[in-house]
């Protein structure tokens, strides 16, 4: 499931379930539709309810990162579970997109929006 919210020039996308081929497509279509219509400064991807990720999910994340970057915006990933975090790490995505996992940092960031 993909839930989106726009707050102060930030697009917050919350994904839940398994981020494979199916959810990757929903995520891609939803975000692209919003960003191509209205560029925003910040893309926040909340994966706290994602239980599984494979290379289809990683590809979709990387593609959205490229898009928001082209538009001059930034992207961050929030709340990755250990199994998801491990795959993000192995893929090299952690080197280019900041991932915030601690509840404290996420709350601070959320309040700063």
């Amino acid at each position, binding site marked *: 499931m993909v839930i989106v919210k726009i707050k102060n020039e930030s697009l917050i996308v919350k994904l839940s379930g398994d981020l494979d081929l199916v959810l990757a497509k929903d995520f891609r279509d939803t975000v692209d539709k919003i960003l191509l219509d209205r560029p925003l400064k910040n893309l926040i991807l909340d994966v706290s309810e994602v239980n*599984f990720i*494979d*290379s289809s999910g*990683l590809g979709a994340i990387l593609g959205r990162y490229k898009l928001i970057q082209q538009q001059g915006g930034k992207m961050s990933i929030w709340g990755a579970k250990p199994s998801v975090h491990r*795959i993000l790490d192995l893929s090299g995505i952690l080197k280019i997109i900041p991932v915030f996992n601690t509840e404290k940092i996420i709350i601070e960031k959320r309040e700063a929006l």
Partner: protein
Amino acid sequence: MGTNNRDNYIKLEFSSLPENVALARVLIASLVVQVDTTINDLEEVKVAVSEAVSNAIIHGYQNEPSGMVNIKAKIIAGQLEIVIEDSGIGIEDIEKAMTPTFSTHPDRMGLGFVFMKSFMDNVEVLSEIGKGTKVILQKKLINDGSCARVAT
């Protein structure tokens, strides 16, 4: 529960629909949890299966849902073998396809085979242009009893 010492064999055929990637993953995970393996091993097998089945759908059948994907798996003395087969277009250059960051599609990272290779002990790919592709994944499942039985 308690099938640890028994060998097991399963076989399933399904349409090349994206929704069936999860189906294949759940099927294999349900087979693997019958063995006292680690959660880590279970997660790794799930990723490898997801990659192989996604490849069959996206590359083999070029997202055409009328194709059929065949999956067979067996556990013999803790040794897991999964065979994923499609009758799609085939892979022209297997070596190139297995290279990290090689992808014929934009928005994909070319990590499918990289994950299969890093998460399984052995990966074998047999492919013929116009005939299809067969991927064989093998992994010795650690049976150290430390794994909580995970409901799937």
